[in-house]
């Protein structure tokens, strides 16, 4: 497989940061927590302790800096690979492991695969697996926000593959027509499972696709927290000022597999991955912080130990919780379920009581 599969490496810009040092350090902490979390979740899957996992390794800068530039009232429509965004929104590792295990504390009551979490109180809409469907939904929510006169934006998170989906085009088209306060945040990580970016579209960039819908489209170095933060903040300012939507293409690289069901060695070279490892966003920000005198190797070792402990403690606590109650999968189908479903529940509970079905 040719290394040409990777997006053109963006040139780091030597522009002054819009981020305060405290923000940079806080962003770095979340990025390191995300990386640590991903590594542990992958290990748990390999040990058979969780069923599935889709890591965001390599995409931490884009996710964390994007979320950092948003306000808590903004509505986020994630894909299933937005760990950094969820963490910035205050989601704890323990809540995530609760979801992965589908235990009694899982807010989704064990209904969804790992990664497909959602937290209403954080305006972090629950994810699904079909690609791109959240894009039109984000536009609709933005139309609703305008109707309610709320000064918020909605953000659709998706990857390079989603830019081929129906809802990407419908969503950008509607957003362009109705000038909605929406940010389309595309993390182009180079690969949609096995399909490289240049086979996904003949478009020169993914951001170019916005032009057909009368929407500004910008490419940003997704490994540069400063560039991402600035681009999202500016897009947000435009949106709340009534100036309409923006498509941002954050160029990143998926350093890990698509998911634990995927073996990337089948379709891409180690050499290509190595090139991008050199541009690891965490190493890059660490280097910047140390160079600027805001951070040290000793600080880093201490922080790594701290986040590892945090993740380990979260796993310990989540695994100690009981499973979701057996009949709970009958809940929340409809607010007012039909008699046929109620009858099925009674049948299930009878089988349970008689020991025919075992929890």
């Amino acid at each position: 497989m040719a290394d040409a599969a990777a997006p053109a490496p963006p040139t780091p810009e030597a522009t002054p940061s819009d981020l305060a040092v405290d923000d940079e350090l806080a962003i770095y902490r979340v990025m390191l927590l995300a990386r640590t979390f991903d590594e542990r979740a992958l290990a748990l899957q390999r040990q058979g302790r969780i069923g599935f996992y889709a890591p965001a390794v390599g995409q931490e800068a884009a996710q964390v800096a994007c979320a950092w530039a948003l306000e808590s009232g903004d509505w986020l429509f994630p894909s299933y690979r937005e760990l950094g965004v969820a963490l910035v929104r205050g989601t704890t590792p323990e809540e995530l492991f609760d979801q992965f295990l589908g235990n009694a504390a899982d807010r989704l009551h064990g209904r969804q695969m790992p990664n497909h979490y959602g937290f209403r109180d954080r305006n972090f809409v629950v994810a699904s697996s079909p690609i791109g469907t959240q894009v039109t939904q984000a536009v609709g929510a933005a139309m609703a926000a305008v109707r309610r006169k709320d000064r918020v934006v909605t953000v659709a998170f998706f990857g390079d593959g989603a830019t081929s989906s129906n809802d990407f085009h419908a969503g950008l088209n509607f957003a362009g027509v109705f000038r909605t306060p929406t940010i389309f945040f595309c993390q182009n990580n180079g690969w949609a499972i096995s399909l490289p970016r240049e086979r996904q579209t003949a478009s020169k960039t993914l951001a170019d696709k916005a032009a057909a819908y009368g929407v500004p489209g910008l490419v940003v170095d997704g490994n540069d927290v400063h560039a991402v933060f600035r681009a999202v903040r500016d897009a947000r300012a435009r949106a709340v000022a009534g100036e309409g939507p923006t498509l941002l293409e954050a160029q990143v690289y998926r350093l890990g597999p698509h998911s634990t069901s995927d073996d990337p060695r089948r379709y891409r070279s180690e050499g290509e991955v190595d090139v991008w490892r050199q541009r690891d966003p965490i190493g890059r920000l660490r280097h910047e912080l140390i160079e600027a005198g805001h951070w040290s190797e000793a600080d880093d070792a201490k922080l790594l130990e701290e986040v590892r402990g945090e993740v380990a403690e979260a796993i310990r606590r989540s695994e100690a919780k009981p499973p979701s109650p057996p009949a709970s999968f009958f809940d929340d189908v409809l607010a007012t379920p039909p008699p046929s479903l109620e009858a099925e529940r009674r049948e299930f509970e009878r089988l349970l009581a008689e020991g025919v079905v075992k929890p």
Partner: protein
Amino acid sequence: MTETTIVQAVNRALREAMQADPDVLLLGEDIGVNGGVFRATEGLFKEFGADRVIDTPLSETGIIGTAIGMALYGLKPVAEIQFMDFIYPGFDQIVSELTKFRYRSGGQYPCHVVIRTPYGGGIKGGLYHSQSTEAYFAHTPGIKVVVPSTPADAHGLLLSAIQDPDPVLFLEPKRIYRSVSGEVPDGAGPEPFGHARVVREGTDVSVFAYGAMIPPAAEACEGVAADGVSAELIDLRTLVPLDEASVLASVEKTGRAVVVHEAPRFCGFGAELAAILAERAFFSLRAPVARVTGYDTPFPYALEQLYLPDAARIRRAIVDTARAG
């Protein structure tokens, strides 16, 4: 009191719902300035403006996807799909998203979108303006499926749909949009879901139908009196939730059942009714359950009158069922 058509009753329900609740808004193709291709939204654009009667670009996934986003945010969108035959670009949004939001979020995100769409044949619409694919949707957990057959039901059930906390697919029998008229009393309110209507009482055979099949079924039930058969006609009105109690009570009385729908027979909604009767009314049945349906072909254009169940076919099935066993 004046007579109202079904399409006028739809229009009236939309207007009343929008007057009562500023969160109710409409979106769809050609529904605003043009008032809808069937005029169901006539006058609403003028009364409520472009922000609440939204002419959308031509994309059903866009219409349903944005309606979902609005509902998640707290509005009460009523989306129009111009013909049920064109709903499939939005099928993913319905099946993967709309019907699963409440469930997949553990109840955090209810998603009350109403999707109105004209369905069914009999208007010389050919393959792509005639389909009745209610079974796809009734098969999918997480959505209610409503099919009125009278102006009063179109009005009352649509008001209920808009107030309902769950997603609702509201199927409008376009063939009888204007040919069936009736009174909708002043101040008429919502009609609750899950209650079948006995159109006509009888003692020998139960006939179950809905939507545009009610007029030919009613004609057939009148006709079989001449054959010495007393037929009971039940209008199901809501397929989900289904009024199973009324279905079973009728067959416990008559011991015989004919199921009518214009959709193809194989895996059609009638198959579910027949299965319910086999499971739960087996010992009341005195004859096999008969189905009078569209055939298992795509919907034909020139010969549609031969494809659609009519009073003669339904009447034959009622008489055969009455005499069987």
